[in-house]
């Protein structure tokens, strides 16, 4: 099976359709991936306006093309200390609508084959399992994928309530 898959991969290298395009984001020393299909826009150096009394995972509001976007702080979700200074913003689209995701920095766009993808390991703790959508086995490291659907503020507040 694996040799067949490998043969197929070589064949299909030219056609990008079978390959997943992934935008990498950096958070402290960790790197995560976001499927590019869910990204509407990348906004550099956003300055979100804090919202008093908002749920803790809300990173504030940003002005995006005539709308006011609610942003989610990835640092908070992953239990990392807040960061001083500006952060990059990914404008993501989920089934519920659009929202912003605050990360330390946006990196390069990679292509990876679905064959290298594996779902979340069972030993991953509950909280992270809800946010991650498996990982890609890259040459040198593992690229942990974020699940944009699960990062939607509506989902997060529902999950917190539950």
């Amino acid at each position: 099976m694996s040799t067949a898959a490998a043969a197929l991969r070589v064949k299909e290298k030219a056609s990008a359709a079978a390959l997943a395009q992934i935008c990498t984001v950096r958070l402290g020393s960790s790197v995560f991936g976001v499927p590019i299909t869910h990204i509407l826009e990348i906004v550099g150096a956003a300055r979100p306006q804090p919202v008093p009394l908002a749920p803790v995972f809300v990173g504030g509001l940003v002005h995006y093309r005539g709308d006011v976007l609610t942003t989610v702080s990835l640092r908070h979700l992953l239990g990392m200390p807040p960061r001083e200074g500006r952060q990059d913003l990914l404008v993501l689209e989920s089934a519920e609508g659009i929202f912003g995701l605050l990360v330390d920095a946006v990196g390069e766009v990679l292509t990876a084959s679905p064959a290298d993808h594996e779902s979340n390991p069972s030993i991953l703790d509950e909280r992270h399992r809800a946010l991650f959508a498996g990982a890609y086995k890259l040459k040198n490291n593992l690229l942990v994928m974020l699940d944009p659907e699960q990062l939607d503020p509506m989902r997060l507040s529902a999950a917190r309530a539950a």
Partner: protein
Amino acid sequence: MDELTREFLIESQEGLDRMERCLTDLEERPKDAGLIGEIFRSVHTIKGTTGFLGFKRLEKLAHAGENLLGQLREGKLIANRPIITGLLHLLDGLRSILKTIEADSNEGEGEDAGLIGRLAQLQPPVKARAKRLAHARAGAASALPSEPAPEPPPELEPALVPEEPVQAEPVEAAAPAPAEAECDQARPRAQGTAAESTLRVDVTLLNRMMNLVGELVLTRNQVLQATSADPRMTLLSRRLDMVTADLRESVMKARMQPVSNIFSKMPRIVRDLSQSLGRRVRLQVEGQETELDKSLLEAIKDPLTHAVRNSLDHGIEPPDVRVAAGKDPEGTLKLRAAQEGSHVIIEVYDDGAGISVEKIRKKAVERGLITAQRASRQSDRELLQLIFVPGFSTAAAVTNVSGRGVGMDVVRTNVEKIGGKVEIDSRAGKGTTLRMRIPLTLAIIPALIVRSLNQSFALPQGALSELVHIPPEQASSAIEWIENAPLYRLRGKLLPLVFLDRLLMPGVEHKMAAERDNFIAVLDADGRRFGLVVDGLADPEEIVVKPLSAVLKTIGLFSGATVLGNAELALILDPGSIALKAGVSLREEDAVFVGESETGACAAAALEYLLVEAAGRQAAVPLADVLRIEQLPLKRIEYIGYRPVLNFEGQLLPVEDSGGVLAAIEGNPQAQIIVVVCREGNRHVGIAVSHVLDVAAGGDLFEAGTTQRTSGVTLLKNRVTGVVDLGAVAPLPAGEAQPAWSEIGETVA
């Protein structure tokens, strides 16, 4: 759902709305061929299209109606009350099927046999005989068509389809065909002209356009700020400014719909209710063409219906009672809409029994809403407003129409939710007027920008009644405490205070009031009056309201967000929710003032003056004309020739300086001046003063020996004070300054 069906639904609904209007008119003019033709066409169109789309149930019902209408059109029947009632039922039947189609994309399983039978019954016996004949021919021998058919589908088709052979009687034979042809020809022509000049647009597209225009307004504000230094750019940005203003107005206009869209529902309601209540009512409608934003129109539909129901149930008396009281047995219900400035006034007037103030007084005391002592002191007008207090209902008997005690407070809540106001005026035995004041649009509202927690917040001007500044050194004496409740004595009455920073960030140490500037925004929200304490004030701005995501909506304190002229985001505070969250209770006694503050404005405000001092002399400015008070550095004042003017974001304000304030401090570059900005006719003027002293009620003065009121002076605090004559402020010289002038009221960054 496919495009064709959607279009069919919209068209049919419009047709049915038209039919409804015509039916109520038809009751008054039963022989009006034009009306009958119009109704016939609505039903005929539905029948025609529906057959094509394959909605069998709808087609059958429309067909039954069309038969009856055909008889009316040919003059074989006169539209009497039972027929109109039958047609109204037909209308409801058609509507409910359309609703089902809209929801589920199919017609549903409903049973229309009873209705079809009733419609058949309304037709003259000739028709019944013809049907029987038809039956014989079709071979369906069983059921009698004059009875409501138990199983309509197999039996109605034969009853109705072979109409042609039955109409062998020569008189009828020729009539229907040409008439049909005629109307079929007439319709496309009429539609053609309408189709050329109008266009259906999705509301979400309009919302999007409104959003983008809001965006453009913000960008323009920023461009204006950035380019004000460069003279070459000034001309261009001025042009951008004008185009933006025009565009904004056009898009806002596109969202406007005439009030007739909801007024037209009323004749039917009035008809049904007056019949079931045994009233005789004539409905008069005025100002149907007045336009209002679509979303607002939707929002006032329920309150308006409620008010109309109330008028019929509690207002207009039964005919015998009216005759006994010496009135016309037929009561009058008047709906009136008119635009007043940036508001639309909607009035529901009836000439019924009116509201007995005594009853209200008694009831209010009984329910403990007000003390007997206080009740005896209050004016009739104030007492009347008590009917808006939750749980108050004067209906002696509970009817199924109204009087369950959940009436007028819901009307008020709904109207206030969209930034409107409602008040009632009534004279026992004479009638009642309910007046709703609705803002023209919700998308852009005037707001005061306040600062707290190093952030800007927008406070809607609609709820704001006044501002009080308490400098740090006065804070400890001016803000009084009962346990942990802060209070401020506003003109002798205790005003509960809410500190915005403490409310938004509980559990954190905040600066004490004595360590900072305090500004109290006195707010009236849903009958709750309180002072919101903030750290600072910025300019008033016209803000574009942007909705918040559902997650942030649940916080409850913010009604939206906006982008300010300096590109900063600001949350829009919701005064009503803040009052609730902070536990400011609804003081019924104060609730009265909410209604009163608006209505009293005309009577009382004419007498209230802003007392100012200009170069050592006191003068009075009518408070009703005062828009705002600006404190600014003297160098902001510029001159056109000898005339001092102020430049507000490109809008010129002539400054009146008859007091010589400017001359007195000229040459001092650090000097600050105070300008009272007033409305005069359709322009704004500024008055330079050295101090603003107080607000006081003026007393009339009479010229000695006459009963003639003196003009130009008033009695303020027992001193004869001159009133500034705003009309005398000369307009700016014609020329470049003039066009910009008429645009005041535009967004100010």
